[in-house]
């Protein structure tokens, strides 16, 4: 299976992905084999969201483990996709459903409903959302901005939690 996968992925593509995401050659080939095993219909995209391999890698780039020596490499270039700030941005965008750079109470409610379903009553969900905003909100606008989000997750080991651990 490994050999079949690598022939479908051209070397120039691998180089492009490498530049964009920072994964190494072997890591990219490995992830490609995983991608093909997920892609049941074998049409080059993952079913529901029509994500092709490039998009897949772009998302996964956020989850690349952070390496020590990279910090010193290029301070001048654009921030690599897997920096702590970018990881947090990725997570933030998960909750900010309407992309207005704020997590409002309604968005929290929607996310909560997806998380726990009907097992908790709506009013309790509302209280949870209110309480979350109360904990995080510092400037009093009843919504969580990206800076407030970062402050909340200050003590959480995001680098470790949002990293793939099966690549070396």
């Amino acid at each position, binding site marked *: 299976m*490994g050999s079949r996968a690598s022939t479908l992925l051209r070397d120039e593509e691998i180089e492009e992905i490498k530049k964009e995401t920072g994964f190494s050659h072997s890591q990219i080939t490995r992830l490609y084999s995983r991608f093909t095993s997920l892609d049941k219909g074998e049409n080059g995209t993952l079913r529901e969201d029509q994500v092709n391999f490039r998009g897949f890698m772009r998302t996964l780039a956020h989850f690349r483990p*952070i390496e020590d020596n990279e910090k010193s490499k290029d301070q001048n270039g654009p921030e690599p996709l897997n920096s702590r700030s970018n990881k947090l941005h990725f997570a933030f965008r998960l909750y900010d459903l309407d992309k207005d750079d704020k997590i409002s109470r309604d968005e929290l409610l929607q996310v909560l409903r997806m998380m*726990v379903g009907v097992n908790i009553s709506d009013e309790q969900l509302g209280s949870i959302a209110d309480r979350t905003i109360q*904990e995080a909100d510092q400037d009093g606008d009843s919504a969580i901005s990206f800076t407030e989000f970062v402050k*909340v997750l200050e003590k*959480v080991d995001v680098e470790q939690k*949002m990293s793939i651990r*099966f690549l070396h």
Partner: protein
Amino acid sequence: EKEKKVNPKTRRGNARGRVRKDSEEEEETRTAGQRRQRNRRAQRKQAGKEDSDSDEESCKTKKNRANQISKQQEPDEGADNNKGGRKGRGKNETKQEKKPEEKGKKDKENKKKDKSNKGSSSESESEEEPITEEELAKLKEEVEEKKKLIATLRNKPWKMKKKLDILKEAQLFVEKFEGALGKGKGKKFYAYKVMMTKKWMKFQRDFENFKTACIPWEMKIKEIESHFGSSVASYFIFLRWMYGINMILFGLTFGLVMVPEVLMGKPYGTLPRKTVPRAEEASAMNFATLWDFSGLAQYSVLFYGYYNNQRTIGWLKFRMPLSYFLVGVGTIAYSYMVVIRTMAKNANEEGGGDDTSFNFSWKMFTSWDYLIGNPETADNKFASITTSFKEAIVEEQENRKEENIHLTRFLRVLANFFALCTLAGSGYLIYFVVRRSQKFALEGLDNYGWWERNEVNMVMSLLGMFCPTLFDVISSLENYHPRIALRWQLGRIFALFLGNLYTFIIALMDEINLKLEEEKIVKYNMTIWEASLYNGTIPENATAPPIQVDPADVPRGPCWETMVGQEFVRLTISDTMTTYITILIGDFLRAVFVRFFNYCWCWDLEYGFPSYSEFDISGNVLGLIFNQGMIWMGSFYAPGLPAINVFRLHTSMYLQCWAVMCCNVPHERVFKASRSNNFYMAMLLFILFLSTLPAVYTIVSIPPSFDCGPFSGKTRMFEVISETLENDFPSWFGKVFSYASNPGLILPFILLMVLSIYYLNATSKSYKEANLDLKKKLQSQAEENKKR
């Protein structure tokens, strides 16, 4: 060598679709051939070092797993995520661990080839150079640094090739100079010692892994925890712990008492005490008799009466009575030790929680574990997120409750008053019923019907069924935090069950006294019967040969110890049956009824009256604790009791796990269990203490039966100890013992122990205060930071 041979196969097996470096494989096969010519010691040293690297790394993950598997529920996020994701992640992780390990080991082989070439030459070089003190110290530092590097190399996010190069370099360095640090002959021994330490650590790690994998029912309990919360799961964890203790008790009684008797004692039918009496022979094998534990079951190794009082049995000269006595004492001592040790361990783990200020935010944003790959685990994780939200809600509600202090206090006092009334009422009822049953017993039980005969049991069961519900209703007045309400509930039902215990013991003591009276009569009759055997020949004629009598025909004394054992066994069995039937009817049939009759019923059965039952934590925990108390009390008189209990706990576990998942719904208000089981342990300790009292009393003050059991013929059971001291130990031992048991020595010793207990208590109190102070400081600092 075996490790290296295994490497290629397992790597092939593990690496699914992973691109392998062909060059590495070639090196592998090459070195395999050349390997054998290498310096053995150096090889093993390398192996040892690599293992230590993997040791340290896996130590962390091992510790993580051990933390999760521990009995304590960790409420913080990390642990929850770990627990949920462990199943799916575990496979990935173990594979990862194996791969780098194997890669590392493969590296070793590569290294060996190179190192041996350089190593031998460099070793000889270093030996020739004189090493000054300074250089030695500097060398030592460098060696330590390199060792640290080797240990942490796995964590570094470098490319594999770079890691391999640096590893090779560092290992060469350490190998070259570590040997130089030991002096001369000591060098070899030092290297050998280092290698053995590392092998030992590896063995320990593997053993830990094995032990963790052996923990029974772990997945079942995790599943229950995700769906029902940590409080329900704590009951099952407690059950599992009890199972462990009972296994040990079973091992002791089975191995040291029952097995020797079966193997080396006289078989069934040779002695009067070992045979079913003629009168009962007809019904000895009926199921009804066996179920009642009389008949053939009574005259078996299960009960005290079967054992012979021969001082030694068999070719091993196994001292049966001594063993019986010591096992009895030993089981109690072991139980005390285990309970107190567990309490102490739990007390340590209580402190040190970090109350964060972002409780809900963290639950919202970081609950899900993205590494879950298994659908079942995902379901469990989903349920556990819900549960953790519910728990957090309950905690919040409790914190925010606006208390009208006076009303609450009044209600609580009222509730306690009601509870006390109930307890007093049930106490009096029990006392009354026991008195009546004693009266019935005096007049002969045959005159009365079924109700009178079983009155005591029925009253106890009815009380046990209805009073807890009553206490439940009363507790709704009190408006406590659910965790505290549970404790009150437990305390009250405990007091109720103590009444049970009291009646049981009273009844037992009465029966014992009866049997003792009977015994005197039987003894008197025995002489008459023996005389009749001799058919008029004068008993003093010692030369008359003893007439052979079939053991079944010999008149028997009533064996009160066997009777006591039987009572305990019957009680355990009936307890078990009651629990199982309650589960089947109360939970299962009810759930079936609600589920299927809901379609054709006027009101909604699921939300309305019966609905599905919730798991009754307090009732079950108390049942478990009292059951164990019975076992402790009865195992001296019925060595087979721990075996029965092990079987009962085993089936209980499966039945209850199934019943909980199938018929119960989670509580309305799911609350986090307290971090330690100490409340349960405290009750267990109390019951243990209460159980030892009757046993000790009967051992010390009631004379054993004259014709059954291992102590027959003695005036007191503990005389077996003094007998052993006289006969089996050298004479000076007896003297030493008598000196040591001099009150002049014992009293100061007791005084010393009391003083040291006081001292330790005082120091621990001061530590606790210091702890609290530090915690407060931390909290205020965190708040200040947040404000900034």
